[in-house]
C-alpha cells in the first residue's frame, strides 16, 4: 500500500466487495450544513447586539449573555462536531476498507448528537447553564453527551478491529486522539453535584475549577477544533489535490508532539491571575513550544499541494483548502505569541482574543469544512452541484469576511487594551470612565458585523446549493466525477 490517501484508496463504494455506509455520511453532512447556518446566524445576531444594544430585544431569552453560549455551542459542537463526524464516517470506511462496525451505533450516535444539540438550543436561551465556557450545558445533557460519546467510541474501535488494512493512516491517529481525549476532558471537567434537575455545582472550587476548566477549554480547541480537523486535512487534502502527503516522518512528529504539548497549555488562559506561578509558567512555556508541531503540520499540508498550485487558481475547493491551512498557521502563530505574559497583559480580556478565535474558527475550521462539503456532495449524491459557479463566489465572500472580522477585532483589541492602561501626565488613568472606551469600539463592531454577514451569506449560498443539488431528481447522475 502506498502511503497516501490520494492515490491508493479509491473513492468508489465497491472496493473488494465492501459496501460502505454512505447514508450516515450524508446525514451528518446535511446536519452540518444546517447547523452552520444556524450557528453563524446567531453569531451575526450577537455581533449586532454589541454594536447596537436594542438588538437584545428586552427579552430574557434573547439577551447577549444567553445567546453568546448558544453561538459558541452551535458553531463548535453542532457545525464543527457534525462536519468532523461526516469526515470520520466517510474517510474511516475507506481508509480501513470496511463498513462501520455497527450501523445501529452509527445511527444512535447521529440522532443522539442532534438531540443533544436541540436540547442545548432550548436550555441555553432559558438561562439553564453551568456557566463554564464551552461546558455550559446542564448536567443531564452532560450525561447524555458522555453516553453518546461512548457509543461513538465503541463503534470507532469496533471498526478499527475489523479493518481490512494493516496500518492505520495518519488521519486515523488524529481521529483517535479526538475520540479519547474529548472523553477524558469532558468527564473530568463536568464533575458536579446536582442541586436540582437543571442546576449543579462543580466539585472543584475557585482557581482549581478555573484550571480544570481551561485545561478542558484549551483542549476543546486542541482536540475538537484542531486534531480532528487535522485528520480531515490529512485525508481530504491529498484526496482532493491528488498529491501524496508531503512527509510521512513529519506527520509522525506532528502528531505526537502536538498531542503531548497541547494538554499542558491551558494555564495561558489564566496568566496574571492568582493561579500558582508554576502553573502559569508551565502553560506559557508549552504554549510557545506548540508553534513547532503546529507549523510542522501546516507545512506538511501546504507542501502536499506542491505541483497542484496551478489548479488552485481555478479550483475553488483547493482555494478553500489553501486558505484554511494558511489560517491554521496564522492562528497557531498568534496563539503562542499571546501566551507570552507581556503580550497577554495587553491582549487578555480584549477583542484581540476574539480576533484570534475567529481567525482560527472561520479561517481554519470554516474554510476546510466548506472545501469538504463542496467536494463530498457531488461524490456522495453522484451528481454535479446545482450551481457550479457559486463556490467561487462563496470563497471570496468568506475570505473578505474573515479579513474584515479579524482586522477589525485586532484594531478594537489594541484600542481598548491600550486605553484601559493609559495614564495621563499626573499618573492617573487617562480614561477613568469605562464607557468612554466602550464607545470607541462601535466602528469596529459595525465592521465586524459586515464581515460576519458576508461569511454568513456565503454559508447560506452553500446551503442552498447543497439542498438544491441533493433534491434534484437523480436522473442527472451521469456527470459524477
Amino acid at each position, binding site marked *: 500500500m502506498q502511503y497516501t490517501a490520494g492515490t491508493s484508496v479509491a473513492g468508489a463504494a465497491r472496493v473488494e466487495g465492501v459496501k460502505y455506509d454512505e447514508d450516515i455520511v450524508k446525514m451528518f453532512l446535511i446536519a452540518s450544513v444546517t447547523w452552520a447556518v444556524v450557528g453563524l446566524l446567531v453569531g451575526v445576531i450577537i455581533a449586532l447586539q454589541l454594536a447596537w*444594544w436594542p438588538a437584545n430585544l428586552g427579552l430574557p431569552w434573547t439577551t447577549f449573555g444567553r445567546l453568546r453560549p448558544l453561538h459558541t455551542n452551535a458553531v463548535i459542537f453542532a457545525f464543527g462536531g457534525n462536519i468532523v463526524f461526516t469526515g470520520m464516517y466517510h474517510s474511516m470506511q475507506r481508509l480501513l476498507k470496511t463498513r462501520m462496525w455497527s450501523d445501529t451505533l452509527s445511527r444512535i450516535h447521529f440522532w443522539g448528537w442532534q438531540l443533544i444539540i436541540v436540547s442545548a438550543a432550548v436550555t441555553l436561551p432559558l438561562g439553564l447553564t453551568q456557566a463554564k465556557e464551552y461546558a455550559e450545558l446542564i448536567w443531564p445533557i452532560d450525561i447524555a453527551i458522555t453516553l453518546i460519546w461512548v457509543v461513538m467510541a465503541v463503534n470507532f*474501535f469496533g471498526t478499527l478491529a475489523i479493518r481490512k488494512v494493516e496500518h492505520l493512516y495518519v488521519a486515523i491517529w488524529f481521529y483517535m486522539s479526538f475520540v479519547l481525549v474529548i472523553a477524558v476532558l469532558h468527564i473530568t471537567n463536568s464533575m458536579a453535584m446536582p*442541586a436540582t434537575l437543571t442546576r449543579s455545582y462543580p466539585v472543584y472550587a475557585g482557581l482549581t475549577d478555573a484550571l480544570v476548566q481551561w485545561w478542558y477549554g484549551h483542549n476543546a480547541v486542541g482536540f475538537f477544533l484542531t486534531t480532528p480537523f487535522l485528520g480531515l486535512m490529512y485525508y481530504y487534502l491529498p484526496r482532493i489535490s491528488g498529491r501524496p502527503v508531503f512527509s510521512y516522518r513529519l506527520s509522525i512528529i506532528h502528531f505526537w508532539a502536538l498531542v503531548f504539548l497541547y494538554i*499542558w497549555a491551558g494555564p495561558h488562559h489564566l496568566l496574571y*491571575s492568582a493561579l500558582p506561578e508554576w502553573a502559569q509558567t508551565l502553560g506559557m512555556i508549552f504554549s510557545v513550544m506548540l508553534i513547532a508541531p503546529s507549523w510542522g503540520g501546516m507545512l506538511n499540508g501546504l507542501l502536499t499541494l506542491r505541483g497542484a498550485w496551478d489548479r488552485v487558481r481555478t479550483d475553488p475547493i483547493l482555494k478553500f483548502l489553501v486558505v484554511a491551512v494558511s489560517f491554521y498557521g496564522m492562528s497557531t502563530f498568534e496563539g503562542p505569541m499571546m501566551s507570552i505574559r507581556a503580550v497577554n497583559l495587553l491582549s487578555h480580556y480584549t477583542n484581540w482574543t476574539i480576533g484570534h478565535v475567529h481567525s482560527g474558527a472561520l479561517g481554519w475550521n470554516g474554510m476546510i469544512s466548506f472545501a469538504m462539503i463542496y467536494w463530498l456532495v457531488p461524490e456522495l449524491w453522484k451528481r454535479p452541484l446545482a450551481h457550479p459557479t457559486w463556490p467561487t463566489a462563496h470563497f471570496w465572500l468568506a475570505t473578505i469576511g474573515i479579513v474584515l472580522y479579524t482586522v477589525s477585532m485586532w484594531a478594537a483589541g489594541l484600542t481598548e487594551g491600550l486605553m484601559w492602561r*493609559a495614564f495621563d501626565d499626573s499618573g492617573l488613568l487617562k480614561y477613568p470612565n*469605562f464607557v468612554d472606551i466602550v464607545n470607541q469600539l462601535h466602528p469596529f463592531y459595525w465592521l465586524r458585523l459586515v464581515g460576519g454577514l458576508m461569511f454568513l451569506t456565503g454559508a447560506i449560498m452553500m446551503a442552498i446549493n447543497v439542498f438544491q443539488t441533493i433534491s434534484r431528481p437523480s436522473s442527472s447522475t451521469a456527470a459524477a466525477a
Partner: protein
Amino acid sequence: MSDQTPQSGYAAAHRTLEGKSALFAVLTTVVILIGGIVEIIPMFSATAGPEHLAGVTPYTPLEQAGRDIYTSEGCYVCHSQMIRPTRAEVLRYGEWTRAGEYEYDHPFQLGSRRMGPDLQRVGGKYPDAWHFEHMRDPRSTSPGSVMPPYTWLHEGTYDVADIQASLRALQKVGVPYTDEEIANAPQAIQAQAQEITARLAQAGITTQPDRKIVALIAYLQRLGKDGKAAIAAQQAAQAAVPPGATP
C-alpha cells in the same frame, strides 16, 4: 517519495505501531494524561495549590441566590472577576485578586472578556439604588452603555426551597454551610432581603423582598469586600511581625 516506505529508524518502528490499534490508543492516552496530571493534581495540595486567605467567608443564602442569577444570565461573558496585579488595574478596580478569595466559588467566574468593567470589587462601590436602576436601564446611570436591560429581574421572584437545595449541593462539594444554616436559610434570606428593600425605600424605590433583583444586589454588593478586608488584615499582621521573627 523515499520517506513513504520507511525501512529503519523511528519511522519503521512507528509503522509497526500503526498495526496495533489498541497499543496506539493506550499510548495516546498516556501521552495526554501526563500534562493533565502534572498540572491538576498539585492544585489539591495545600502547599502547591491556591493559597488560603483567612477571613474569606461563604456567600449568604441570598447572595448565593444572586450568584445563581449572575451565572444563569451569563453576566460572565461580559464581566471578569479578576484584577491583575498592575498599576492600571489596581487604580481602576482596586486591590488585585488573591487566590483565596475564590475559595467558595463553585463555579469560578473569572471570565475571559471585559466588555464591561471588572466586578471583583464592585461591592460597596455604588448604593443599592444605583444597581436597581442600572439593571433596569443601564443607560439611565451610564450613558452610552452597551449592557442589556434586565427588567425581568425586577418582576421575577426567587424560590427559597430552590436556594436550600443549592446550599445542600454546595455543602456536599465542600462549602462549610452547617445543616442548621441551611434549615434556617428562609429566615436569613428574609432578613437580608428586607435590609436591602429598606435601603431602596430610603432612595424612593418600592419593591418586594422576594424579587430576583434583590438577590442580585445582595451578591453584587458583597463582591470583593470580605477579600479586601482579609488582605488588609493579612498585611497588617505581616507588618506587625518584627523582621527575622518566625511566625
